């Protein structure tokens, strides 16, 4: 209540009565405690933010409230009624809607049909005899999907899928809306669109529980925030209070560029190692680039490359090269062709025109597995681990088809990966699907490295990961370079990738619009152009790329 008043009058009234109450809620998966003794209240009409690093238990929290998972201990009350023993469909019919982090559309149904499902589920709540499909269409209009209502849901873009998640949750006429990372994977303009949509929903009096990584979204919407870390609630307060909270700062590592020392949060081995590597970052990079930079024949040479998906041309006459030991960043908005570029290099999509040369050899028509054996490793966006296999098995599988002429033994490479990400050694026997997102990304990188590649393609290195984890991943890059591996980095945190890259390519709608050193790119308007459409400053605190980068972390906002 204090929290709400310090920020000052908002557009909506906040009732004093709690709509949702959690008392000592605990959830265990086998021996792992995902949530430990969580208690908090959400008042009617409030918008409560929930933040925390990956693996903190945020999604689990929402699953417990929505009934998708059972509470191990404790109780959840909604408007005075026990929720924790009700099945998910009954909870939904009470008016609790959830939008998932990864959209879960009914892919073979139309957009309208998707929204009709919850409309039907809540049909008894509408006394008037309005047509149900009118209701559904009104919600689609609100979410900006009306013109796509007859499309198959599976064919929508990510932004539209996120809108559909919101639309379906709204169609339940919710009193409480659970939003899970609605801005994850979106960029610039899209984040603002979804933010204003949430604000307008909240303004209609819907109580909202907002789990979010994109800090700008939390700041602009929530007036009270709770922070989770490793299943515990470690702080609660206004966004500003949270940003000053020492424990929160510790969790989020307080670093814009990943150059500050680690905190006691990590285990002994991990701490020592990551601290060391962080300190050694600038020098390692300097040596690796200075030594190999001038070598004239590039390791990878892409000439005049075009790729088509049916009628859509995803890449247009693109030239691209990576030198030995070089780290090259590729930046650009969603749909610019970054992922397609990595897939064309690794042989996962056919090339329509142009050539791909690797170490002087023409590989344009070579199938993917042969390119892998030449030393091209791809870390997919979304990781694509063998989820049911253990960490160790995943790493072994990565080594099955090692690059021809590999100089190291399997044991050496395994040791190298374990030293790079010590947590993988600790969790070697765990199933990969059980790890947190950050650890899974480490497995994915480790698996790619196990083949001893000469070129590592990292597609969306840090997508959806917490800043602390992102720091660890970036800290690993110079060590990977030091092994003589060249890196192509695709990364949504533009400033971060500029900070580590030797050269940067800016893509826009399948074309290279600019290429140069990070400093040249920073000075050039092409970057803003690529992300924001125009270089105009968006509303709110995130007015420049640098500022929006800082906004990713609560500690830097103050």
């Amino acid at each position, binding site marked *: 209540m204090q929290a709400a008043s310090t920020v000052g009058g908002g557009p909506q009234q906040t009732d004093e009565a709690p709509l949702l109450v959690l008392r000592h809620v605990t959830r265990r998966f086998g021996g792992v405690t995902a949530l430990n003794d969580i208690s908090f209240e959400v008042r009617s009409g409030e918008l409560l933010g929930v933040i925390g690093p990956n693996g903190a238990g945020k999604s689990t929290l929402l699953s417990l409230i929505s009934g998708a998972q059972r509470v191990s201990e404790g109780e959840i009350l909604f408007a005075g009624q026990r929720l924790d023993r009700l099945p998910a469909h009954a909870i939904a019919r009470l008016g609790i809607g959830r939008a998932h982090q990864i959209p879960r559309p009914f892919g*073979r149904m139309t957009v309208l049909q998707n929204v009709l*499902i919850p409309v*039907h589920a809540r049909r008894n709540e509408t006394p008037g005899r309005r047509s149900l499909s009118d209701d559904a269409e009104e919600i689609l209009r609100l979410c900006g999907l009306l013109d796509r209502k007859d499309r198959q849901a599976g064919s929508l873009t990510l932004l539209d899928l996120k809108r559909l998640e919101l639309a379906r949750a709204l169609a339940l006429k919710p009193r409480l809306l659970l939003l899970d990372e609605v801005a994850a994977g979106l960029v610039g303009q899209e984040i603002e669109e979804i933010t204003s949509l949430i604000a307008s929903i909240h303004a209609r009096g819907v109580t909202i529980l907002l789990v979010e990584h994109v800090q700008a979204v939390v700041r602009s919407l929530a007036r009270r925030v709770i922070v989770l870390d490793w299943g515990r609630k470690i702080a609660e307060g206004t966004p500003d209070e949270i940003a000053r909270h020492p424990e929160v700062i510790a969790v989020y590592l307080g670093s814009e560029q990943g150059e500050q020392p680690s905190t006691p949060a990590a285990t002994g081995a991990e701490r020592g190692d990551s601290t060391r590597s962080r300190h050694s970052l600038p020098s390692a990079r300097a040596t690796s680039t200075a030594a190999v930079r001038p070598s004239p024949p590039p390791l990878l040479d892409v000439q005049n490359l075009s790729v088509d998906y049916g009628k859509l041309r995803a890449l247009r006459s693109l030239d691209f090269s990576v030198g030995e030991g070089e780290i090259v960043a590729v930046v650009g908005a969603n749909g610019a062709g970054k992922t397609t570029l990595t897939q064309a290099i690794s042989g996962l999509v056919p090339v329509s025109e142009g050539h791909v040369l690797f170490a002087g050899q023409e590989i344009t028509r070579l199938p993917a597995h042969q390119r892998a054996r030449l030393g091209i490793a791809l870390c997919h966006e979304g990781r694509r681990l063998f989820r049911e296999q253990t960490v160790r098995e995943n790493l072994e599988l990565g080594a099955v088809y090692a690059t021809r002429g590999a100089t190291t033994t399997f044991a050496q490479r395994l040791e190298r990966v374990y030293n790079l990400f010590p947590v993988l050694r600790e969790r070697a026997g765990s199933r990969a699907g059980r790890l947190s997102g950050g650890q899974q990304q480490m497995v994915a990188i480790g698996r790619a490295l196990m083949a001893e590649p000469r070129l590592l393609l990292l597609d969306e290195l840090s997508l959806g990961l917490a800043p602390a984890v992102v720091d660890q991943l970036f800290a690993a890059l110079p060590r990977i370079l030091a092994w003589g591996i060249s890196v192509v980095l695709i990364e949504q945190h533009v400033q971060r990738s500029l900070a580590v890259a030797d050269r940067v390519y800016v893509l826009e709608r399948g074309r290279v619009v600019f290429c140069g050193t990070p400093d040249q790119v920073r000075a050039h308007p092409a970057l803003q152009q690529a992300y924001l459409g125009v270089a105009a400053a968006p509303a709110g605190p995130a007015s420049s790329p640098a500022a929006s980068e800082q906004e990713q972390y609560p500690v830097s906002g103050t």
Partner: protein
Amino acid sequence: MKTHPASSDQLAPPVTRRQSLRHLAPWLGWGVLGLLVLLAALGPLYLSAFDLVLAFTLFNYMTMAQSWNLLGGYGGQFSLGHSLFVGAGSYTIAVLLLHSGLPLLLDLLLSGLLAAALATLAALLLMRLREAYFSIGSLGLAMAALTWMLNWSFTGATSGLNLPPAATLDYSTLYYLALGLLVVTTLTIVLLVRSPFGLRLMAIRDDQEAAAELGVNSFPVKLVTFAISAFFVGLAGGLIALNKLEIEPDSAFSMNWVITMIIITIIGGIATSTGPLLGAVVFFTLQQVLQNSQALSSLLTGLLLILIIRLAPEGLWPLALKLGRRLGEGLLSRFAHSKQAETVLSAQEAVGGRSRLGER
């Protein structure tokens, strides 16, 4: 919509015509369907007794595939146990005709109801299983039922049962029963999948957890779907017994029934309501043309299945719709200027095929 390089006054009429075609299309589809039903209803007037039996078998294939498709296609519950319901229907009607004095139509109805009751029981066991586990579980139940029937002396164990001579029906009666069942089954399923119930069913198929969080209680939906699917298959099983007059477990509970249903559905188009009808025609024609060389028939059916899964995984009916639509639009845009009445008509027919029965 493609804009033709024509001046605006030339462009206007084809657009409006195309829109009016869109409105006409469903009605045209229903019209074609009505015509087909009428043609079939007059069947005994122009078909030989032999043809009537063939048509009887074809209709039963259609009914069974249609019913399987409700659960397997729209519901995503890939049942391998539907042979159980064919056998249950066959044996129920045989036992009732032998041991009770109830009228034949009531016996038939009861054979469907018993199959539905069995399905409800089976569902209580199986519905907790997902995907492949559900399929294996349903297969296990069907095999258990076959073993049971092979040993149950009340139903004649391995030698089976002979229906009483009084139950012999003439071919046109059997034909009408099978046609009637087909029409009722198809109508029921088409209406069902277009209703909110059908939406819920498809939502569960696509993502059960997400559906639950949107207020869909999956258990009753799946239970009712399973029961309805089994009900119509049981009725078909009853009709098959009435035609064969002697039944024994190995053929009544044969795995071939469910395999046939699945092949027909996949050939015609899974999760479409016209697909199983079209698939049955293709499958049955292949079977009849090559009936003298069983091996070749199986080989070609298998080959066809592989081709369809490779080239048109959605099945023949969606493929035909796609081609028809493209042809229609192509014709429309080519002849837009000349405005020849007859070309518009033929295009109209091509587009009209579009949304006959369940566009899904």
